[in-house]
């Protein structure tokens, strides 16, 4: 397995991929391992913060009628605790693992979009700091992590608390979306040759599922947050029942996002177990295909169960029964996992390391969280359970059990790979047992409190209610658990310096990341591995894994700059050579400026907002400018023959990236239109009061469709070697787009006389939906103009990147067009046929 290449090659690869030291390197690095580790550390810090918050709350609840905290402090604490744990710890820590591991496991040199990866991380940091900056004026979010309106509206929560929440999560949403798109494209494009879909580690399946879920679920949250911010800042009426809005709209949007999100923060963690458990059981996972399918199935089913968070909101019984059933069905894929892990242990030869213990603990906690989940799916009983400590117990069993325990298992498992040193096993056992006992003493009695009628989110309770003893026990458990976490920190800090040196593969694990040194070199693999089995490092001892065909030490070498292979999505045949970007400060600048923008919005300060947006714009320009620079060769000679550089169409990552953007944007508009349909269906007044005038909108629709046709025609002409026609068509498209926007502005102007965004929910929705579409047209125009100026000439001369840009912008423009047709049909035509 040792590299057989000359040191010279390693040195040159090192020079090519290495991040320069110092602050500059710190801010510019795009290395997935660096970013992954930062994710892990940052998320862990948030875990500790969330833990401190929990500790304070448990102190307040240790006995009846305590006044350690004021009600306001308590409310802020439980809100920020939830936000921290759910958004700033649970998902990012898994992103950390996935970021670190994916290219290593998949046999690639980096993620598909390394700079986006950096952006994703810096945005996460920015969002986290932004939310926590609210501590300085004592106005941390205080409406619970699911932030129900109308309590979260300005009328009842007049401080800046909720603005921090709304904008912080929007920012984090961008981070997560960007990261998800990156994972998806990475999976489809940058695996090692031969790493076909049936050979993927389960954590990859988990993260892939989570990423796809994110693309479609996060827009729902974004829509909700935008509505919330507009309501609070500008007095729109999305959630205002007095003007046609509905508080339940928030709940629907939030839980359509929120429930899938639960799977986002558990599926990769379950992947950790599925990948690490076999190592310690000394055998492959039982039922790989079942587990992979169950992972995907959970992701899909996760979209169909959001209503079980809303069983007590007065929904008709038929709907309740349906969603109750759906919520139970989701236990089936979970059961697949549990029995697969059980069987793996049963038929394996367990090595009882700390990591293994954490995974065994996970299985038990997961089971408890799972069965209590089934209990909550039983609608009539849920009317009793919901909003009590039973739910608190349930959700913590799920989240601590399925996220924290696998994460700790992951730490013990991959710490050697990341640092080159082993964590201490003796301390590890203490660590495990305090956490395991702590978590059960902490959360199991909460079931009991729930059954005894204790509602959640109360800052104190009376002694006559019989909850005191149990609460004291819970608090003791909380501090025991905290001690466990503290033991881990001690272990990690000690082991960083004094841990046993790990070597490449201390656990004798089967997957690719263990084939390289610990820690791995910046370029991951000196030569790109060619994979032939699911367990490349165990091929020689597994009867059904072929017989050692994976090429690990002397595969293809890509060393003219930062390069890796792009592959065909299903069979993993290399089809392009990807030029990977250099380090860049701009992701950092963009993230910081967007954070500044949010600060400006919450202040509120127009100057800060404007400054933030300006820097953001400049960062984007600076980020993308070099990509139009000269490229020497368009094809590269490799072991797999002459391969094009970056490729075009669906061969290129950019195409996939655009596809992801369009997918998530389509979901965004779908949620906007669904909100419109929901509110209009439940409006007591005829909606809209006056049907929109078609005299401007109909011609405008024709104009936009025409622009799409023209652009498509131009693209054809360009492909047929008529670049001037292409440029002409693009110019016409731009002009038509401008005409569209002008007419739209004129229509706004005339409609504002009768309906304003603050008139009622209809006005709010009308202007928000058409406004967002208009912004997309504008974005499309900017892209078109950019491509027209910089790309089309190159395209005309056969340059891939130019063509790629044109293909992407065409795709985007068609998308904007299709969105408009949907908007036009629902907002303009439908009221007339009513």
């Amino acid at each position, binding site marked *: 397995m040792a590299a057989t290449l000359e040191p010279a090659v390693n040195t040159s690869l090192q020079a090519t991929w290495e991040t320069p030291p110092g602050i500059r390197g710190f801010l510019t690095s795009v290395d997935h391992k660096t970013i992954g580790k930062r994710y892990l550390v940052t998320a862990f810090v948030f875990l500790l913060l969330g833990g401190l918050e929990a500790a304070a709350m448990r102190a307040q609840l240790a006995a009846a009628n305590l006044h350690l905290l004021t009600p306001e402090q308590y409310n802020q604490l439980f809100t920020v605790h939830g936000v921290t744990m759910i958004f700033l710890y649970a998902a990012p820590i898994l992103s950390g693992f996935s970021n670190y591991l994916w290219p290593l496991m998949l046999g690639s040199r980096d993620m598909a979009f390394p700079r986006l990866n950096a952006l994703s991380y810096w945005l996460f940091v920015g969002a986290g700091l932004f939310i926590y900056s609210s501590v300085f004026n004592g106005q941390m979010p205080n409406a619970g992590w699911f932030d129900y309106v109308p309590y979260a509206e300005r009328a009842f929560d007049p401080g800046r608390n909720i603005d921090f929440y709304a904008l912080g999560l929007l920012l984090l949403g961008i981070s997560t979306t960007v990261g998800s798109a990156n994972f998806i494209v990475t999976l489809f494009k940058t695996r090692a040759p031969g790493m076909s879909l049936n050979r993927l580690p389960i954590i990859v399946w988990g993260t892939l599922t989570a990423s796809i879920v994110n693309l479609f679920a996060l827009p729902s949250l974004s829509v909700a947050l935008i509505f919330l911010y507009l309501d609070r800042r500008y007095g729109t009426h999305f959630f205002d*029942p*007095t*003007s*046609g809005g509905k508080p339940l709209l928030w709940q629907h949007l939030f839980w359509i996002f929120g429930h899938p999100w639960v799977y986002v923060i558990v599926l990769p963690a379950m992947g950790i177990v599925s990948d690490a458990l076999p190592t310690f059981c000394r055998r492959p996972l039982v039922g790989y295909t079942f587990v992979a399918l169950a992972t995907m199935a959970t992701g899909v089913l996760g979209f169909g169960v959001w209503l079980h968070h809303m069983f007590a909101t007065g929904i008709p019984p038929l709907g309740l029964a349906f969603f109750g059933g759906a919520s139970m069905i989701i236990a089936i894929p979970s059961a697949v996992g549990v029995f697969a892990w059980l069987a793996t242990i049963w038929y394996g030869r367990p090595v009882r390391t700390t990591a293994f213990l954490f995974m065994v603990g996970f299985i038990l906690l997961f089971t408890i969280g799972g069965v209590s989940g089934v209990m909550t799916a039983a609608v009539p009983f849920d009317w009793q359970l919901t909003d009590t400590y039973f739910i608190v117990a349930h959700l913590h069993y799920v989240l601590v059990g399925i996220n924290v325990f696998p994460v700790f298992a992951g730490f013990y498992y991959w710490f050697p790979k990341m640092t080159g040193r082993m964590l201490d096993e003796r301390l590890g056992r203490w660590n495990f047992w305090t956490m395991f006992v702590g978590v059960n003493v902490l959360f199991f009695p909460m079931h009991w409190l729930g059954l005894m009628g204790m509602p959640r989110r109360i800052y104190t309770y009376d002694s006559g209610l019989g909850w005191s003893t149990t609460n004291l026990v819970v608090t003791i458990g909380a501090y025991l658990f905290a001690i466990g976490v503290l033991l881990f920190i001690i272990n990690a800090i000690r082991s960083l310096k004094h841990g046993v040196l790990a070597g490449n593969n201390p656990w004798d694990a089967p997957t690719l990341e263990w084939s390289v040194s610990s820690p791995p070199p910046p370029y991951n693999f000196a030569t790109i591995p060619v994979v032939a089995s699911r367990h490349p490092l165990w091929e020689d001892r597994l009867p059904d894994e072929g017989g050692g065909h994976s090429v690990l030490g002397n595969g293809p070498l890509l060393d003219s700059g930062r390069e890796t292979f792009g592959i065909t999505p299903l069979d993993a045949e290399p089809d392009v050579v990807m030029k990977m970007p250099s380090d860049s400060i701009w992701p950092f600048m963009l993230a910081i400026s967007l954070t500044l923008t949010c600060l400006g919005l919450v202040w509120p300060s127009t100057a800060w907002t404007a400054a933030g947006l300006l820097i953001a714009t400049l960062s984007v320009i600076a980020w993308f400018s070099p990509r139009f620079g000269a490229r020497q060769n368009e094809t590269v000679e490799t072991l797999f023959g002459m391969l094009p550089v970056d490729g075009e169409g669906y061969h290129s990552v950019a195409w996939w990236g655009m596809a992801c953007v369009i997918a998530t944007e389509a979901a965004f508009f779908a949620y906007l239109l669904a909100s419109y349909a929901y509110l209009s269906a439940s409006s*007591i*007044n*005829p909606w809209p*009061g006056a049907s929109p005038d078609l005299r401007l909108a109909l011609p405008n629709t024709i104009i936009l469709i025409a622009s799409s046709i023209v652009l498509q025609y131009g693209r054809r002409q360009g492909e047929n070697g008529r670049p001037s026609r292409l440029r002409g068509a693009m110019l016409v498209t731009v002009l038509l787009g401008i005409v569209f926007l002008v007419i739209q502005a004129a229509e706004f102007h005339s409609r504002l006389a009768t309906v304003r965004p603050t008139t*009622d929910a209809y006005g709010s929705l009308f202007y928000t939906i058409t406004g967002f579409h208009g912004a997309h047209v504008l974005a499309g125009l900017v892209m078109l103009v950019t491509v027209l100026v910089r790309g089309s000439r190159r395209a005309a001369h056969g340059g891939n990147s130019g063509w790629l840009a044109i293909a992407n912008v065409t795709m985007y423009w068609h998308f904007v067009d299709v969105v408009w047709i949907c908007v036009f049909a629902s907002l303009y035509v439908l009221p007339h046929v009513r």
Partner: protein
Amino acid sequence: MQPVDNPSIRIALRSLISLTFAGVAVTACTTHEYPGRRANDAGDSSGVSAATTTSTSTPAGENVTGATAPTGPGWGIPADGDWTTQGRDYANTRYSPLAEIDTSNVSSLRIAWSFNDGVLHGHEGTPLVANNTMYLVTPFPDIAYALDLTKPGAPIKWTYRPNPSPIAIGKACCDVVNRGWQLADGKLIYNLLDGHTVAVDAATGKELWRTQVYDVTQGVTMTMAPVIVKDKVLVGNSGGEMGVLGSLTALDLKTGKIDWQATSTGPDSLVKIGPDFKPFYSWMQGKNLGETTWPAGAWKNGAGAVWGWITYDPDLNLIYAGTSNTGPWNAQQRPGLNLWTSGVFARDPDTGMAKWAFVFTPHNEWDYDGVNENILVNLPINGKQRKVMVQFNRNGFAYTIDRATGEVLMVSPFGHENWASGIDSVTKMPIVVPEKKTEVPGHWVRDICPADIGVKDEQPAAFSPRTGLFYVPVQNICMDYKGREVSYIAGTPYWGADMTRHVGPGGNYGEFIAWNASTGKKVWGIPEKFLVYSGVLVTGGDVAFYGTVDGWFRAVNARTGKILWSQKLGSGIIGAPMTFRGPDGHQYVSVLAGVGGAAMVTKAMPGFPARGGTLYTFALDSSVPAQGVQGSQSGASSNGAQAKEKR
């Protein structure tokens, strides 16, 4: 000398109209222009449409409906040149038989003189004339003026300043108006805004008595015109938005002492419901409904103020007085039918005991008061002549009710309304459109028509026994409404609604219509850009007068709806015009111009006039007296001029 009342002259005039009708109508339609009005304006187009719908009324001089005004000694009809009570007679017809000014010559009307009373609030009353003296009372501070008509320019004869408490200014919901004053027994009797009723010697302006009837500090004001029946002065309170307990009070005409008081809500003893009380419909029959149809105790603040017009049938010895909206507006705070608000009582004026009642808008959710005037007429229905009262209710329906029993004989919408899909044929309750219910507080309910001020507010309609038609000022206004939870805090509004108003379909705020109460149909209508918030006068010359909120004073052919004459006055017109015969024997028409009151709801409209407080008196060009200077030199010269003009 009373030429217009001379039967032969009347016949002559009728023939003249008959002969020239078609020609006059056509030429007027096509050629008549009046100052400041564009040819394509609403009024003109309506003139055309009126012409097309007047086939029923074409026979000049005929009563097209068979409806007649009750006549007889008890009906309070003054000498034909006088006007001594607001409605001119107990039946509230606002019809004057004077016919010097008629459809043929009205276009030559011009201002004879004017009088500015110096108060810039809503002028909702009608000047009174008796003994060659004109009486008018200003809005708060409720100053009374007597003008000497025998002298040129009608100088002030006396002034009476009652100095009411200024606290009343802040307790009056809709401007500090005074809707009228009455002459009886040599007294000028009217209400002060601060809850007092005063009687002033009509000859000298000396205060004869002053009685505190209501407590203004609790938000109760008085704006209505008292009605004097026999020896009783009947007065009611205002404050439907202030959580008052509505009531009708009878004072002794001689002394001003309170004789009886009947509330609009509460137990039967307070409402003055006894064994004689026989409402026609079963849902109004029962004990103490004024109490039990309310949440416990809520009747005490349930409004039902009696701030509108009272009419009197001397034959049946019944008075008819409507009750105001239900308090608070927010209907969710008062489940139940909320009797007897938004309805009308027939009471015995001697005892106050109720004989029957009818509630137009039970559980009123829209502020549709029931206080509008009940015009008493005799009307053929299904071949039988019935004694009825006609009310053009705020809720948009015109009710023709048997005034002896309270049976609703006919009901149909007389303007644009969308809150009720109709009236139940059995119970006569409105069938409410569910989308227009306002009960869920906090919800904006959009586009309820009419708005709170109704298809017609207090501005009184008129009835002409000559044409058999009613002349009704109509509003075309709708509202977006949001109920709000409201606490009763004594002396503050008990209201509970946020509201914006907008114009109804068609874009014209007002309309002036002629109504056939026998068929329940509109005969013709004149759309107006602004509200028609003035009362109406109709004369023996078949001319109907009305004014608009933007200040146009118009004369209309009462049969065709053709606008014959218009004059822009100094402010908007929300008072009711009247006509009298001057000492010179000529017919004069007077109207107060002073915009205010509920008409202010359109104050944001471009063209809305400034406040004012001017009385304008018009006469035919030919009979306008000579200039004041000359007139003062020769008092007899005006008589001479008048003789010359005589036809």
